[in-house]
């Protein structure tokens, strides 16, 4: 589904990603772990098509389509979803209004019929229940005045409503207490199925106790230095990232 080959990317003249290779198949959950500054968030932003991130070499493909040829909204229409590390506030715009616009923009782009208010509301309620989000959250403006936990849960709700093919979770666990973490993880697990893939980006192993990945990759200095099964996360927890310095590059 997702194929990242020898990806090099830079931000403001500084090279951050230096040859990332990653292949994700439908139904899989991949964890990308790494310390601060290793390039984790850059990878997420590059996948979503953020303008300030320049791809200097390599390729990105989603279902065989070249992502670099696509604008951020086109990538979204193709089924790519990014759960933001820092979800953005949009004052005065109702959460459910925003989601309806997003759903219908996507449906329109795919040549599907747009949902009317009633159908949408039904979908929204059903998904809110699925990921255990309080309906009161739907009536508030997008992320405005939300607590850190509410913002992250809202991202999961958006994901549940938009039903992406590939969801990239950028440090969704950061700033969450254990209860919020469990709710968020439960939401993600509820959305796991054989057609959908996840790339879970995280600093800590903690989240992976609740979202058990099929594959774990260690990102260091802009390269994936090691890949393995879910056991790799525990190894990391024990040894720390320092243990991987100078280790064999899996790339």
């Amino acid at each position, binding site marked *: 589904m997702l194929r990242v080959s020898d990806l090099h990317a830079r931000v403001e003249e500084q090279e951050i990603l230096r040859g990332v290779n990653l292949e994700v198949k439908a139904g899989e959950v991949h964890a990308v772990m790494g310390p601060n500054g290793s390039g984790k968030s850059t990878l997420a932003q590059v996948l*979503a*098509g*953020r*303008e*300030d991130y320049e791809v200097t070499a390599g390729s990105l493909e989603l279902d065989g389509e070249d992502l670099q040829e696509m*604008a*951020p*909204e086109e*990538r*979204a*229409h193709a089924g790519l*979803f*990014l759960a*933001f590390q820092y*979800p*953005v506030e*949009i*004052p*005065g*715009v109702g959460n459910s209004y*925003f*989601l309806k*616009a*997003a*759903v219908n*923009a*996507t449906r329109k*782009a795919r040549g599907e019929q747009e949902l009317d208010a009633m159908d949408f509301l039904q979908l929204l309620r059903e998904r809110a229940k699925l990921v255990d989000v309080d309906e009161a959250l739907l009536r508030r*403006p997008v992320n405005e005045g939300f607590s850190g936990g509410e913002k992250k849960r809202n991202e999961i709700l*958006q994901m549940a409503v*938009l039903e992406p093919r590939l969801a990239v979770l950028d440090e969704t666990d950061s700033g969450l207490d254990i209860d919020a973490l469990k709710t968020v993880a439960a939401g993600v697990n509820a959305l796991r199925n054989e057609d959908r893939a996840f790339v879970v980006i995280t600093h800590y192993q903690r989240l992976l106790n609740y979202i058990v990945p099929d594959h774990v990759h260690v990102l260091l200095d802009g390269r994936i230095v090691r890949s393995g099964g879910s056991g790799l996360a525990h190894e990391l927890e024990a040894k720390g990232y320092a243990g991987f310095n100078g280790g064999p590059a899996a790339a």
Partner: protein
Amino acid sequence: MATAADTIEALAQRDYEYGFVTDVEQDTAPPGLSEEIIAFISAKKNEPQWMLDWRLDAYRGWLKMVEPEWANVRYEPVDYQSICYYAAPKSDDDRPKSLDEIDPEILATYEKLGIPLKEQEMLAGVAVDAVFDSVSVATTFREKLSELGVIFCSFSEAVQDHPELVRKYLGTVVPRRDNFFAALNSAVFSDGSFVYIPKGVRCPMELSTYFRINAMNTGQFERTLIIADEGSYVSYLEGCTAPMRDENQLHAAVVELVAHEDARIKYSTVQNWYPGDKEGVGGIYNFVTKRGLCEGRRSKISWTQVETGSAVTWKYPSCILKGDDSVGEFYSVAVSNNRQQADTGTKMIHVGKRTSSTIVSKGISAGEGQNTYRGSVRILRSAEDARNFSQCDSMLIGDRCGAHTFPYIDVANPSAQMEHEASTSKIGEDQIFYCNQRGIETEDAVSMIVNGFCKEVFRELPMEFAVEAQKLLEVSLEGSVG
């Protein structure tokens, strides 16, 4: 009641008195401003002597005034002697025969705003059935209103039919020599609306200039007077969301509102005069004086405005809170895109005890637009326990526009409670990217973000106006990003 003979005599005398030679049959006054021209306008409208005297006094005052320069706007000086101060409405022969004759660009905008075809024809001034339709609509409304004793007519009609009311209230809120533009308006005003709501009557419908057929082409010097007698209520809508093109570059309107005890007036405006092209060529100069007097106890005046048009806007709808416990409100959205300049805000003058005022101003600048909020809150010594809440938010789209805020606060009574909040934000790339990532295109994202920003004002607008205003904002800001 003046007889026809009296009127004719008065006219004859006037001609003599001012050595007036212009042919009365003529439909357009020659350019320039003089006592003769004012007399010509007054005669054309068949006005009584007191009305003419009133105009002349305003004119004499105006001659001694200088054009204000304190506003944060730059424009070519206006040559007041090159303007025609009276032109009769165009006859059907001069009007376009169908929409095929209208500039396609205007039609495209009508389309985007979702304006029905009949209405498009009316707005574009097409001489067809649409006009007759609306005449009958207007007549039906008028009959219904007159049953309740509500007077809703053109200003010219009011001078003829209700001179006692006009004489009693005209100039009591905005004196004829109030300021340069108000004095000019007082001297030469063309037409406008007159509303009187009798005691205890709640006006059953929104009064809109749209339903007053002769409100179209009221010209560049519009005059409006609204009086709400004790315990009455009225909601008045001015303007329309369709772009209004006008050959006249200078517009100087005056609006006066009077609210008696327990009366409430809600005045909503959508102003969408031609803003000029992208380079700033053409466009209307809109210099308006709007003021409301909360005369009676517990009276309330609420101004809501959405200003998207005009090349230059100079406008400060204000409230004089004279009655104890009276309330003034001002909700504003002002947009300046391309080369537009807007200097707008409000004045709240607290005179009575326990008076309160609320100001919510949202300024949006895009392109090279310059947007200024200028507001003044004055608490006089007599205003015991007065309160004010002000909120001024500015939003910038792009990096070549500007937002400026000049809030003046003047408190002469220490019991006053004042709150002021201000913010400036930029539509962030973060916000747009967030929307993009959810599948929403950039233009739609901008309009969504801007509408969210203006929400507190839009919700003050009457329902259908609010929907139109949102669409209007979308059209006004089209192409301002990316």
